[in-house]
């Protein structure tokens, strides 16, 4: 008797619970990814990209990027900066002072209002604490705490040593997020004045989402912050719940989204994305990562790659189209195959630009002979395990093609940490790597990837003229003059051929058909605040 009653009761409960559950599913976005989140504070050294993505949901910044259409797809726009916690901002006519007027309705997750004190503390932390922020912000001339001044409870002023185009965009990157200063300070200790330990595992933000549960390397569950109304037209975020799950196997992620169990994924293998696009059941938005480049790179200091002739010979011998098909299934933007009328770059506004590179083995042989190596040479070609999916087929084709002009290549596949160490020590002669710039302006690329003994200067280029031009371009306010610098730099890049730009791989966002609003973001993560379900 009791059994029957219980069974009936549970049956009743189940049927009553069903509609509620179904509704929750529609209001929930389930996102799957191969990587994992390792900190709740994006400033922690070693933060993963996914951690960056999360921090832009749990925290607000003063300003954020607008968006624009590029070849019919929405991408972030470096040139439109809009207020986030700042209701508006004014730039003084001389460009030296930026005044931020904070929103008066903004509250932290604990209910306390966001004030100028919080902004000041967060910015002081960004430039002072030992974290990733300082290194980023100095690219926008923001280096010292005293550059930030509280005017009143809702106004903060930033003073710059010189007008800098990248000052505002830098404040829209993931590091200078605004912390609840009172809360964070209460968790600070004498050894840890900026509460870095506590903020690794806790949040003190005002963002659109509140972290409900966080299991590093497994799942993160976010709940909508009902008070957050900083979307377009003062709207809330659309989804009530967001679940991010780490699924290491790429083909499983593809299965999940295809069967409708997951709503969105952005890190599929190119072959799976192509397959799902062909089947046509799901929405596939494939955006070339216009702030990223994949290179075949040489260390310009290690012979024989110190000879420009050798570098150009290899550039003429690469089987570009075959590599593009085998590695990316043509999912990306080609950076080869242009025609430059007089050997000069056609534009200087942007970098990278499509290069006049074509496969021409006879020319390659001639260049190699001219460089004094008619019989070729032997070398190694390295890539890291993490990139094996695209780099392996590419390396095989490269080896085959270079053999035809007498260059014998041994392929070397290295664990990721070993590869970064060797690159940092400048010990890899010939390899493939990629770069990403959060702030993809022409001078930013040249300054961060072609100058100095840093890790990102893959080619170890040390060219005084290029350095001088890039530094001059940084503070050039006049658009025409800026483009003139760019024209020289882009031409020099082709003439010197410090490394060979191949392509810009696409970010394939595969999602359920009803998902709207996807935008390719600078940090190459999904900003879930952009999304809604029809």
């Amino acid at each position, binding site marked *: 008797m009791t059994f029957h009653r219980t069974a009936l009761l549970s049956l009743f409960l189940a049927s009553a619970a069903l509609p509620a*559950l179904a509704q929750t*599913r529609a209001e929930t976005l389930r996102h799957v990814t191969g990587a994992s989140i390792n900190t709740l504070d994006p400033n922690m050294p070693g933060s993963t990209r996914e951690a960056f993505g999360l921090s832009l949901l749990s925290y607000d910044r003063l300003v954020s990027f607008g968006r624009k259409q590029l070849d019919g797809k929405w991408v972030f726009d470096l040139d439109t900066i809009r207020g986030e916690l700042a209701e508006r901002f004014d730039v003084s006519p001389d460009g030296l002072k930026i005044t931020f007027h904070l929103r008066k309705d903004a509250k932290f997750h604990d209910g306390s209002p966001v004030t100028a004190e919080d902004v000041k503390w967060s910015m002081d932390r960004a430039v002072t604490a030992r974290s990733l922020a300082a290194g*980023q912000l100095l690219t926008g001339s923001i280096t010292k705490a005293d550059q930030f001044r509280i005017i009143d409870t809702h106004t903060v002023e930033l003073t710059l040593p010189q007008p800098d185009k990248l000052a505002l965009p830098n404040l829209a990157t993931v590091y200078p997020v605004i912390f609840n200063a009172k809360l964070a300070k209460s968790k600070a200790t004498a050894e840890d004045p900026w509460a870095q330990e506590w903020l690794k595992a806790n949040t003190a933000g005002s963002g659109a989402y509140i972290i409900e549960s966080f299991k590093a390397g497994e799942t993160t569950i976010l709940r909508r912050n009902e008070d957050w109304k900083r979307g377009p037209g003062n709207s809330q975020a659309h989804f009530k719940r967001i679940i991010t799950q780490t699924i290491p196997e790429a083909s499983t992620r593809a*299965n999940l989204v295809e069967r409708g*169990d997951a709503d969105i994924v952005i890190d599929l293998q190119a072959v799976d994305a192509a397959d799902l696009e062909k089947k046509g059941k799901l929405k596939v938005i494939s955006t070339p990562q216009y702030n990223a480049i994949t290179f075949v790179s040489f260390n310009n200091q290690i012979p024989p790659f110190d000879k420009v002739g050798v570098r150009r010979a290899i550039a003429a011998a690469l089987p570009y189209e075959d590599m593009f098909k085998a590695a990316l299934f043509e999912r990306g933007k080609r950076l080869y195959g242009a025609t430059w009328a007089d050997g000069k770059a056609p534009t200087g506004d942007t970098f990278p630009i499509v290069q006049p590179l074509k496969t021409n083995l006879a020319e390659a042989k001639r260049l190699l002979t001219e460089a004094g190596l008619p019989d070729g040479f032997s070398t190694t070609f390295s890539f890291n395990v993490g990139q094996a999916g695209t780099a392996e087929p590419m390396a095989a084709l490269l080896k085959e093609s270079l053999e035809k002009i007498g260059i014998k290549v041994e392929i070397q596949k290295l*664990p*990721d*940490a070993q590869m970064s160490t060797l690159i*940092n020590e400048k010990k890899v002669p010939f390899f493939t790597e990629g770069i990403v710039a959060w702030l993809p302006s022409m001078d930013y690329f040249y300054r961060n990837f072609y100058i100095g003994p840093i890790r990102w200067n893959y080619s170890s280029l040390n060219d005084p003229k290029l350095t001088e031009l890039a530094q001059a371009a940084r503070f050039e306010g006049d658009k025409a003059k800026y483009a003139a610098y760019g024209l020289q730099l882009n031409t020099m890049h082709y003439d010197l051929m410090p490394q060979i730009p191949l392509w810009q791989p696409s970010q394939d966002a595969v999602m359920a058909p009803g998902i709207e609003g996807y935008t390719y973001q600078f940090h190459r993560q999904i900003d879930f605040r952009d999304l809604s379900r029809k």
Partner: protein
Amino acid sequence: MKLGATATRAGRRFISSLPALFGVVVFTFLLMRVLPGDPAVFFASGPQAGPEEIAMIRKQMGLDKPVPQQLLLYLGDLSQGNLGRSLTTGQPVLADLRNRLPASLELTLTALLIALLTAVPLGIIAALRPGSAVDHLVRFICALGVCVPTFVSGLLLIYVFYYLLGLAPDPTGRIDIFLSQPPRVTGFLLIDFALAGDWEGWSAAARQLVLPALTMALFVVAPLARMTRASMLASLGSDFIRTAKSLGLSGRKIIVTYALRNAILPVLTIAGIVFSTMLGANVLVEKVFSWPGVASYALDALLSSDYAPVQGFVLLMAAIFVFVNLTVDVLYGIADPRVSVE
């Protein structure tokens, strides 16, 4: 009396394994530092990624000190139960392992149970009729199980049972993401759900467990079945079986009580080894099924030269290996009272 002797023996064995554990700790510590790949460089990903940032991470990881001093500090931390912090997950290694070990153990134990329940009967049947069609069939199944790598069989099972038929739940870890976890008591979901009396949750967790456990079991059925067959053959051919037969004992009694009990020792040994291997080497299964276990955790850490988790993992595996060997020794005594391993 007998129990006391077994306990003494187990205790002595445990103490004699301590130097080995210590050796493992020191060896792994040094090995990680000899391997090429500098974790500080790997984790320095800022736009400058210059010498200062790398030095900062190195200091944070304690890598700026000389190696002998690092080793002493590490041993000091170990004695206080502190295994360090993982840069890959940002959590203390001890907490990570504590969260993930039950997942691995639950999977491995289930797989071993499935494997034993399949392999032992298969081995016995094959031994009873050597050379027959049944024997060949068993050999074929074993060969197939060993030949197909776990990630292939895993992906195949997912493809058929999840993707095509929709029978299995999505292969995304230990429990459906939309269900809530049971209150944590042991960390074993099946036990925790049972303790909480949540049978719906229990069956959901069991359903998640089936495919990965099958995948792992497939791979280890072969050594277990082959070993059972070989030792059953030897046992069935011995004098005491002939005597038993001539006395007219029932077939069941001869096979199960006399032959199997005598044949089970080598199977136990193999099962112990198989268990330890499965636990450490099931990284592919864990990856394919997004199982939040210790092996995939260690692999991720190893690829990024994250020292603390790898060291913690190796120490844990060594300790489990010691424990499993002890258990097998004790089981020996129970299976065959004549045996006393010193």
